């Protein structure tokens, strides 16, 4: 009986296999979609994002994320992070009040920062002319240098208005430990004039340094300012102000991988002692308040693109509601396009995928996964531009 059952099972197996509903082999279209999906997946970090040991996980990475509005001439946002590292308490030596950097140390750090720019630009890959940074590292001059605790921060401005920041261990100013910037392109606008009490600063930048994530901001302040105070992440930070420029860095609790930094408020201190609270920031026009999100919603979508180590990429990022644990982005049509799983952390999501041909703004649709495993398909984001 047992043997006859076995024989029968073998025969049934064979018959069942002849009824297999799965495709026998992949069509050309399936193969193309497979390659695209695989490329997109492999272009993402294989997520060992948790700190592991004291050494960087990978070489510093050049990653430019350019807002879609860059087509109209906005600058690149450039992030060259040193990668996550762990172990030590995050910047325990940091102080809300900065200290100046002495001339010899500054000269060494400036040289290292410029070398880092050249190296990163060399690794930028093949960039279309309209997206090509016009930065000349030799033209970069330091506008702010500050030391907080055991770390140095350098903010530089180049002739084309590109801004670049370099981060150092104070004991080793020859080695850049974190490098970031906003690089101008041929279409970048000339910075506008500021009235007294105004600032012009993009959002907070984020990078990974020797003790974890740090945030920074660099900007210009209107005439007559003697100080700028930054309020962010529950801290009140005195920025270093020098000749119409200001900058500061601080240990951040926001995840560096998300591209989007913490919200900032600026108070400007004028020469007569007047404090202009919540100074107007020309880079963030009034009314650009974050959208109110329900727990199952996504919103404040910002799309971009740029050039990474592996070529051109398109990006999307936004915020997620409290119950959202996953976001899947469908690029192009849901049946024939790509599917990209976004990274979701700390109330935000981000995704990037290789740019194909001349596409700039392919239609995107979003599936949202909730904490209980529910998947909400085709969700409409709330707020934000260029959805």
């Amino acid at each position: 009986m047992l043997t006859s059952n076995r024989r029968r099972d073998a025969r049934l197996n064979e018959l069942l296999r002849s009824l297999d509903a799965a495709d026998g082999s992949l069509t050309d279209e399936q193969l193309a979609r497979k390659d695209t999906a695989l490329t997109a997946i492999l272009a993402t970090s294989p997520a060992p994002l948790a700190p592991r040991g004291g050494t960087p996980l990978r070489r510093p990475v050049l990653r430019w994320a350019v807002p879609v509005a860059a087509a109209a001439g906005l600058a690149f946002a450039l992030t060259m992070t040193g990668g996550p590292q762990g172990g030590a308490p995050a910047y325990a030596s940091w102080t809300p009040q900065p200290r100046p950097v002495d001339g010899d140390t500054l000269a060494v750090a400036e040289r290292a920062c410029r070398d880092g720019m050249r190296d990163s630009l060399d690794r930028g890959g093949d960039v279309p002319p309209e997206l090509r940074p016009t930065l000349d590292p030799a033209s970069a001059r330091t506008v702010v240098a500050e030391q907080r605790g055991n770390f140095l921060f350098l903010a530089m401005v180049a002739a084309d208005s590109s801004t670049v920041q370099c981060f150092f261990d104070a004991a080793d100013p020859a080695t850049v430990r974190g490098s970031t910037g906003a690089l101008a392109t041929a279409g970048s606008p000339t910075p506008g004039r500021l009235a007294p009490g105004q600032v012009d600063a993009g959002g907070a930048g984020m990078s990974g340094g020797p003790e974890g994530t740090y945030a920074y901001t660099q900007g210009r302040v209107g005439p007559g300012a003697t100080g700028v105070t930054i309020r962010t992440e529950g801290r009140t930070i005195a920025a270093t102000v020098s000749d119409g420029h200001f900058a500061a860095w601080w240990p951040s609790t926001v995840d560096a991988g998300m591209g989007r930094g913490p919200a900032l408020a600026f108070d400007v201190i004028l020469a007569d002692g007047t404090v202009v609270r919540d100074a107007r920031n020309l880079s963030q026009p009034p009314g650009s308040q974050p959208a109110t999100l329900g727990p199952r919603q996504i919103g404040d979508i910002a799309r971009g693109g740029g050039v990474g180590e592996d070529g051109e990429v398109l990006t999307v990022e936004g915020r997620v509601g409290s119950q959202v644990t996953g976001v899947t982005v469908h690029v192009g049509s849901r049946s024939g396009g790509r599917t990209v799983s976004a990274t979701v952390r700390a109330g935000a999501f981000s995704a990037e995928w290789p740019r194909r041909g001349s596409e700039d703004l392919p239609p995107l649709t979003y599936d949202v996964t909730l904490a209980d495993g529910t998947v909400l398909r085709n969700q409409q984001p709330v707020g934000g531009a260029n959805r």
Partner: protein
Amino acid sequence: MLRYVQRRLDGPGGREGAEDVVAEAMTVAWRRVDDLPVDPDDARAWLFGIARTCLLNHRRAAGRRAALGVRLTEVEQVSGSGAPHPLARDSSADLVAARVDLARAWSALTEGEQDVLALAVFEGLDSTRAGRVLGITAVAYRLRLSRARAQLRRRLEGAASHANATRYEEISTC
């Protein structure tokens, strides 16, 4: 992995849906690449386990139960007139009939029984690895497989006694 998912994803849009699930599963796998087993067969089972979780998420979203049925190709068409089903091309009438019966018996199995059988028959996994996909021990898997096989045989025996009537019905409705 696409084939694994295709077998377990039904309904409209299943074809594209399968690719979406595979893309999700591969993304998860890439994030957990440090856990990827070195042995290729272990790695297959590991990937199927991830795909299974993604599939279950899909089905939960659609309000379905937390079990994965495994569909077979449509065989009812083989009895009809018109263009022959690919399976019928080189098959004798008996073989076609056997497939129709088998498909019927298969569809009468529970989703869990289909899942257990498919891991052995279609995915070709041994008990240890199939158990790993389902999150159970090899012994528990062998037990479930043996029950599922017995159930399939019983369903087939039931089908055989109604075989003529069944086939007649199919022909008359096509």
